C-alpha cells in the first residue's frame, strides 16, 4: 500500500515537472518571437551594411575590413533585421523595406598588444565611429557615436569586434523602428516578408 502511494507521488511529481518544462518552453518561444519581428509596426526591415568610411584618418585596411565583417556578424545576431546584406549585393534592389547602415570613422588611437601586456595601463586601441541608419531616400533614422576599445587582453583587431558589438547593441536597444520618420517609408505589402523574392538569403543563410 505504502509502495503504491510512493509510486503515485513520484508519478505526480514527474508529471508536474514535465508540464512546467513544456510551459516554460512555450513561454520562452513567445518571448523570443517579438524580438525576431524587429518592429512595432509589424514590418520586418532589412539592412545593407556599407563599407567603413575612414574619412581623414589613416586607418589600416585590415581594421576597415574587420569592422565591416564583424558588423555583418553582429547584426545577424541581433535578429532585428530580416536580411543583413553586404555592400553591392544585387538582391538589395528587390527588398522594399531596406535600411542602409553607414559607418564613418571619427577617432582612432592605434595601440599595441605588447605594450598592453607589459604595462597594463597603456597601449589601448581605441576606435570611435559615427553610425547612421538611413533609408533609401537618405533620411537618417538613427544616428549614434559608438566606441570600441581593447584595453587589456586580446589583439588590436579585437577592438573592431567590440565596436561592431556596441553598434549592434545600440541598434537593437533603440526604438528606431517605431519612429515617425520610418513610418512614412513602410511599404504596404512587404513582398520580401511573403518570401516571394527569388534568391533572398535569410539570416541563417548569411551566416
Amino acid at each position, binding site marked *: 500500500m505504502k509502495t503504491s502511494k510512493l509510486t503515485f507521488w513520484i508519478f505526480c511529481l514527474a508529471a508536474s515537472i514535465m508540464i512546467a518544462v513544456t510551459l516554460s518552453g512555450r513561454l520562452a518561444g513567445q518571448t523570443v518571437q517579438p524580438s525576431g519581428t524587429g518592429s512595432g509596426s509589424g514590418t520586418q526591415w532589412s539592412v545593407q551594411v556599407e*563599407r567603413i568610411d575612414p*574619412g*581623414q*584618418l*589613416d586607418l*589600416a*585596411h*585590415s581594421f*576597415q*575590413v*574587420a569592422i*565591416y*565583417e*564583424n558588423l555583418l556578424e553582429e547584426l545577424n545576431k541581433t535578429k532585428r533585421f530580416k536580411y543583413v*546584406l*553586404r*555592400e*553591392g*549585393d*544585387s*538582391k538589395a534592389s528587390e527588398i522594399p523595406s531596406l535600411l542602409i547602415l553607414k559607418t*564613418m*570613422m*571619427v*577617432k*582612432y*588611437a*592605434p*595601440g*599595441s*598588444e*605588447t*605594450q598592453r*601586456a*607589459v*604595462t597594463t595601463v*597603456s*597601449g*589601448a586601441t581605441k576606435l570611435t565611429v559615427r553610425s547612421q541608419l538611413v533609408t533609401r531616400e537618405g533620411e537618417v533614422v538613427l544616428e549614434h557615436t559608438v566606441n570600441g576599445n581593447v584595453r587589456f*587582453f586580446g*589583439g*588590436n*583587431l579585437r577592438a573592431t569586434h567590440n565596436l561592431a558589438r556596441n553598434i549592434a547593441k545600440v541598434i537593437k536597444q533603440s526604438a528606431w523602428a517605431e519612429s515617425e520618420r520610418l513610418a512614412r517609408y513602410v511599404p504596404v505589402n512587404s513582398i520580401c516578408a511573403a518570401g516571394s523574392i527569388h*534568391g533572398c538569403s535569410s539570416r541563417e543563410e548569411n551566416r
Partner: protein
Amino acid sequence: MYRWFVRNDKSSCSGGQALISLSALLLCFCISTLAQSTAPASKANSPFSIRATHVMGLPNTKSNCKGTLTTEDNVLRFQQSGKPIAQVDIASVRYVFLGEESVQVGGLPMKIGKAAAPYGGGRLVSLFAHKKYDTLTLEYVDGDGGLHGAILLVTKGQGELVRDELVARGVSSSSDEGGPTKQSTSEVRYEDK
C-alpha cells in the same frame, strides 16, 4: 712538310674550337633570352603555397585557424588539415592590401603562465614573447556582387610575395600603399575635422 701539316692541323683545330665556343655562347644567350621572356608566364601559372593564419572573412572557415594558403589555377585556396577547403576565385578579388601586425605568441597557456608568474615576471616575458606578422587584407565579391573582406596573417616577409603573386594574376594592389602599413605603437590621436 709534316710541320706544315701539323701547323695546318693545329690552326684548323683552334678555328673549330673557336667556332664551337662561339656557337655555345650564342646558344647560352638564346636560352637565357628565351628563359627571361617566358619566366613571368610560368610564374603566373605555377602553384604558390605558404602557411597562414585565417583571421576572418573566408567562406566556411573558422576564425583564427592555421592552414595553408595556395594560389593555383586562378583560385586562392585556404586549407586546414582535415577540413574542407575555402576557396576564392582570384578574378573576384578586387584589392589586396599589405599591413604589419605585432602579435603576442603562445596563446591562452602562455597568458595563464604569464599571469601566474610571480614578481611581474609575466610582463618581462611579454616584452620578448611577440612576433611580427604581415597582414594580408583581401576585398572580394560574391556571386551576387556583395562585398566580402578577408584577413590573413603570414610570416613577416611572405606577405609581399603573396601580394606580388596576386598582382601578377591581375589583382589590384592599393594605390596609396607601396609597402606595408605599420600600425604605430604610439598613442596618437586623429580627429576628424
